[in-house]
């Protein structure tokens, strides 16, 4: 038993329970939220230093040896994702200190926040497909309630779409699990990887590829992949901005994590078909996402479409399927989650000041808040991929991997889409920050932008924006780490042996 692996699950659970016990005091709940998120971040950092020496930590829950019990395993990729979870959780918890209204706090905002984090951490540490399903459901039910909490009409309509499509994804996932168990008699990911690596008989190949497609559809819905993304732009702009920011940073990335895990460890028997299809969908995801964004004038809807477009880049690295491209995907995931969350938080800060998300009604923010403007520019230019910010190195890695393997079309798409990304980031800049305010008599409340509320908002935005700058300036060590994780993913034997060696 390695207690360290359990911490990313145990800490949010304990925090959630603690906030339940303190339900009478909103102030205590808020600070417990921040403390719990900090503890999660600390645990993730310790885990990352443990696995940075290329070890894979494995724990058998209940001491049932693999492949019979549930395995928790943390390799470098999982550890990086956990670190990302910690960072986003902490930044958003600071942001939500003074921005969540009393009703939402009374009806369980802080509890759900941590149960959601528990689900996210659980998916990152588990080594068992059915357990992955259970963690998915934990995070889904929390996200359902967080999305609908407050009960505004727009929220209800967004939540209906979100709930329906995610429940369909779960049903597909469950069916695929059952059929996989029927064929191989195991759901341990390492065991499945081992069996499939030993070679499939010709009559098994067809069904296994079909199951791979079912998994792709199920995780694709959660990741907002090309034909399956419609729930996202219809729901992400409806809840309070702290919730949007948390979702944009973590939830689609969980889908991408599951896709990467399954298509590097288990379904690698026919990469010519499955991974080429992924590459194809990646290109379409990028294009549709960015084109959808161009037409939007609600800041959060615009950013939601960009989430989809960025998912395309993450899938591109998986589709190229080499150590370098997977490393770029991992680096890109960290970069895009941080930058995207920062941008959502900026939209929240603008809303806090001006009371609207509509770009046509916004304006003059550079004049009122030059600091916030700089922070926005850092995150926006990082997202578009300008050097020396983090997005540049993430895209450089992907483009180089694509060129090295001769996939020129997807490289051209990736570069074109980043140009359009830059265009729509500049649209936000021009509309919200640069142009004059459309009507001056509207309330520009100097009061609203003062005090400790504003300070906490700025701290959370600044920490994320500066982090993207640091990730760009210090890209070398960060990319080293991602390369290590990519190499581990391309060599699934390491994972399989670690799980087996963990058997006492």
């Amino acid at each position, binding site marked *: 038993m390695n207690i360290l692996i359990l911490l990313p699950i145990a800490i949010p659970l304990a925090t959630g329970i603690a906030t339940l016990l303190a339900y009478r005091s909103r102030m205590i709940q808020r600070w417990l939220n921040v403390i719990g998120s900090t503890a999660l971040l600390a645990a993730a950092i310790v885990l990352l230093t443990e696995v940075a020496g290329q070890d894979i930590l494995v724990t058998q829950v209940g001491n049932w040896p693999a492949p019979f019990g549930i395995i928790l395993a943390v390799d470098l990729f999982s550890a990086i994702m956990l670190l990302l979870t910690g960072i986003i959780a902490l930044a958003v918890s600071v942001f939500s200190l003074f921005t969540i209204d009393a009703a939402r706090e009374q009806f369980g905002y802080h509890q759900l926040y941590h149960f959601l984090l528990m689900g996210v951490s659980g998916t990152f540490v588990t080594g068992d497909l059915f357990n992955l399903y259970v963690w998915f459901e934990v995070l889904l039910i929390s996200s359902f309630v967080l999305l609908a909490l407050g009960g505004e*009409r727009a929220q209800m309509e967004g*939540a*209906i779409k979100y709930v329906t499509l995610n429940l369909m994804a779960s049903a597909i996932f469950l*069916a695929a699990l059952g059929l996989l168990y*029927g064929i191989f008699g195991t759901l341990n990911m390492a065991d499945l990887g081992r069996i499939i690596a030993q070679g499939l008989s010709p009559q098994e190949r067809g069904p296994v590829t079909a199951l791979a497609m079912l998994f792709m559809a199920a995780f694709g819905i959660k990741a907002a992949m090309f034909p399956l993304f419609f729930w996202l732009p219809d729901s992400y702009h409806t809840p309070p901005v702290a919730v949007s920011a948390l979702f944009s940073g973590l939830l689609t990335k969980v889908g991408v994590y599951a896709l990467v895990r399954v298509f590097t460890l288990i379904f690698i028997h026919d990469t010519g078909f499955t991974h080429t299809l992924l590459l194809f969908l990646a290109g379409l995801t990028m294009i549709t996402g960015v084109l959808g964004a161009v037409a939007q004038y609600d800041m959060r809807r615009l950013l939601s479409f960009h989430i989809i477009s960025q998912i395309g880049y993450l899938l591109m690295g998986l589709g190229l399927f080499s150590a370098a491209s997977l490393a770029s995907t991992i680096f890109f995931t960290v970069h895009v989650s941080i930058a995207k969350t920062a941008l959502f938080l900026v939209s929240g800060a603008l809303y806090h000041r001006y009371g609207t998300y509509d770009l046509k009604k916004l304006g003059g923010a550079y004049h009122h808040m030059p600091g916030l403007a700089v922070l926005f520019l850092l995150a926006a230019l990082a997202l578009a991929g300008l050097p020396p910010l983090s997005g540049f190195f993430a895209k450089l890695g992907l483009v180089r991997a694509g060129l090295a393997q001769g996939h020129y079309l997807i490289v051209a798409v990736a570069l074109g889409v980043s140009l359009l990304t830059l265009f729509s980031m500049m649209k936000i800049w021009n509309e919200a920050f640069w142009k004059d305010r459309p009507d001056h008599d509207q309330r520009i409340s100097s009061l609203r932008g003062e005090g400790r509320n504003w300070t906490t908002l700025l701290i959370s935005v600044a920490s994320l924006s500066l982090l993207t700058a640091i990730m760009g300036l210090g890209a070398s060590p960060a990319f080293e780490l991602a390369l290590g994780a990519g190499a581990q993913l391309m060599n699934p034997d390491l994972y399989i042996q670690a799980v087996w060696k963990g058997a006492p």
Partner: protein
Amino acid sequence: MEVVLAIVVGGLYAAGIYMLLRRSLVKLLIGLAFLSHAANLLIFTAARLNRAAPPVIAPGEQALTAPYADPLPQALILTAIVISFGVTAFALALAYRTYRSVGSDDLDEMKGIEG
């Protein structure tokens, strides 16, 4: 027996998808419930149906002797049933709140109202 269950599963999927395509919110939820029932029965069928002995190690033995029924799929299904129960309860509550705020359970009425 497999054939009968396969037809039932197929029928449930067909009915579920038909219900999902209806405009009424309540029918949508019934469709989702059908889909999860279909998935549960699918696991049950895919994991082999046999009328073997229960998976209990006989006294004096060290391991199970074949044939025995595999208990794992039933554990999986039980977990999935519990989860879908909770999720369906939430979805029903959500549908009720939506009905209260929109004043209709027609999904077309909800289109394009949000900004």
